């Protein structure tokens, strides 16, 4: 930058203007809009009270894979709060995030978790009780596109896990069940919130498959026209967070970014997390919300499926299982 003294001074000027008020950008997944609106409103005064000064937090929401790509392309996010580990890993592989990011914060840098669940219209007219019921003829499903959002990937993995569980780990049967369910999907939305609004506002589909955080929020709203079906098994969804070191170092926001993510682990932060229907790590907070966030049998991507890398190859890459199944479904529909 030394070769551009004029530019440097202009940037320096911009930097001094900016430093009077620190600003960080949180790039997050799609349905965390309300969660982080609340987290930010709580963190800003807490940060000021601790002597940190004025802080502005900007938000960007979208499918978490899309967000990761945007950061690689130049989106200046200081922190990421994603819904899928491999999206943070992609940033780590490209040296935007520390290699040992998962060890930088407690619980594998995942301050809260959730599971996938099923939302149906009030009265459950199609009699949905578990994942297998989604395969029944005439059931229509709305979910996120598994190619672009973690939300959609967890859904597909849940179908498959349910199949393995029901049929004594018979992969062929699990595949058949997953295919039947995917055949009933009427809309693949680009993000979690888009899927929700398609289900609620456009009244498309008998079933919305998304994070429990979203289904509980919708079902617990006053006068809600929906109810949550908690499936017998689900996939544990971790919500990894990380400081985007490459950006934060340049913008001088590394400390505030870390403080922001630390805040998510405080009792106050965990309370907000639980209030927004995510499952907190803090035992005390969890106990208080136990009635709402009922225990679910979960399988983990690492232990059960052998990790995200393997899952991506097996299920979500170009020409992998999801593509194959959708292609078969389309072919059968045309013929």
């Amino acid at each position: 930058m030394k070769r551009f003294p004029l530019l440097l001074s202009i940037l320096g000027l911009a930097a001094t203007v900016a430093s009077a008020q620190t600003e960080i950008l949180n790039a997050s997944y799609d349905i965390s809009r309300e969660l982080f609106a609340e987290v930010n409103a709580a963190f800003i005064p807490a940060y000021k009270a601790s002597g940190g000064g004025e802080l502005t937090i900007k938000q960007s929401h979208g499918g978490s894979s899309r967000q990761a790509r945007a950061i690689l392309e130049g989106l200046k996010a200081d922190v990421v709060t994603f819904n899928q580990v491999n999206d943070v890993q992609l940033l780590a592989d490209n040296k935007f995030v520390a290699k040992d990011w998962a060890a930088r914060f407690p619980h594998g840098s995942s301050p809260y978790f959730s599971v996938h669940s099923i939302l149906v219209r009030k009265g459950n007219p199609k009699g949905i009780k578990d994942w297998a019921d989604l395969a029944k003829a005439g059931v229509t499903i709305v979910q996120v596109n598994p190619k672009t959002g973690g939300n959609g990937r967890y859904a597909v993995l849940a179908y498959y896990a349910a199949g393995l569980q029901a049929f004594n780990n018979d992969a062929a049967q699990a595949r058949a069940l997953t295919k039947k369910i995917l055949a009933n999907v009427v809309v693949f939305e680009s993000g979690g919130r888009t899927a929700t609004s398609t289900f609620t506002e456009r009244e498309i589909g008998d079933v919305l498959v998304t994070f429990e955080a979203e289904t509980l929020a919708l079902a617990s709203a006053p006068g809600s026209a929906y109810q949550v079906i908690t499936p017998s098994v689900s996939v544990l969804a971790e919500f990894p967070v990380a400081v985007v070191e490459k950006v934060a170092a340049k913008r001088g926001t590394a400390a505030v970014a870390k403080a922001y993510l630390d805040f998510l682990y405080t009792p106050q932060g965990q309370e907000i997390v639980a209030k927004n229907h995510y499952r907190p790590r803090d035992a005390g907070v969890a106990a208080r919300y136990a009635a709402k966030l009922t225990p679910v049998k979960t399988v983990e991507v690492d232990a059960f499926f052998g990790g995200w890398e393997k899952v991506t190859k097996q299920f979500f890459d170009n020409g992998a299982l999801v593509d194959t199944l959708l292609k078969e479904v389309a072919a059968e529909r045309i013929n």
Partner: protein
Amino acid sequence: MSARVSETTRAGLRGHPGRIALVLTGAGAVGLLISLPLGAVFYYALREGWAAYFGYLLAPDTRHAIGLSLLAAGVALPVNTVFGLCAAWALAKFTFPGRRLLISLIELPLSISPIIIGVGYLFVFGLQGVLGPWLDDHGISMAFNVTSVVIVTTIVTSPYVFRELLPLMLAQGTQEEQAAVSLGAGAWKTFFRVTLPNVKWALFYGLTLSFARSLGEFGSVAVVSGAVRGETNTLTLQIDLLYHDQVQTAAFAVASVLTSFALVTLLIKTWVERRESVDSP
């Protein structure tokens, strides 16, 4: 795309059931196709009342989106005017090899998906692109920020002024300019005194259309914006966000602003065409 239709005598419908049927079918189908979405925008925007309507429009993020879209359209407008005038001048007043190809290239952004332009832009200016890493090393960031939003908006709307000017300038030929030059007028004088007055109404409409399209650009901006609320969200991205956020009324309130602008554009077009038919008897 303006039809400069000379006023011919039109047949009445009375006593001609066949004509009535044709008019009812055509006007009915097109009328519904246009008025239903138009009506829907204002109906859904106002269904919670005026207070709610203005409340949605004055929300901070929406106000910022209006500002950003105005900025993008405000930059695109003068750039596209200069470009449109230059290109129309070169292509209407002169012939040279490759002229048709050049027209096709200029109009290309109208015909290809804006997604392609957004993606191409990232391949140049994104951090994984051709120039992006070098620019970043020098502290210049040109992707996922306001700069990228403004630039792709300009690119996508670049043909609008041009395509309004070209047919008119072609039709007008070069006699007047030749006369002016032979009388000793300089280049700029010829342009400002002869050419510009002849095309001023088409230019005016081209400007309005270009402005309306830049306010409403979606696909390419969606690729390069990063959708940071209150920072890189344009009006259309704000509509997208609100629409999917269960605040449909707010989405349609924002949409009604853009729709009103489209209606003003149509008014101006109608008025301009009337002026043109007055100007050139």
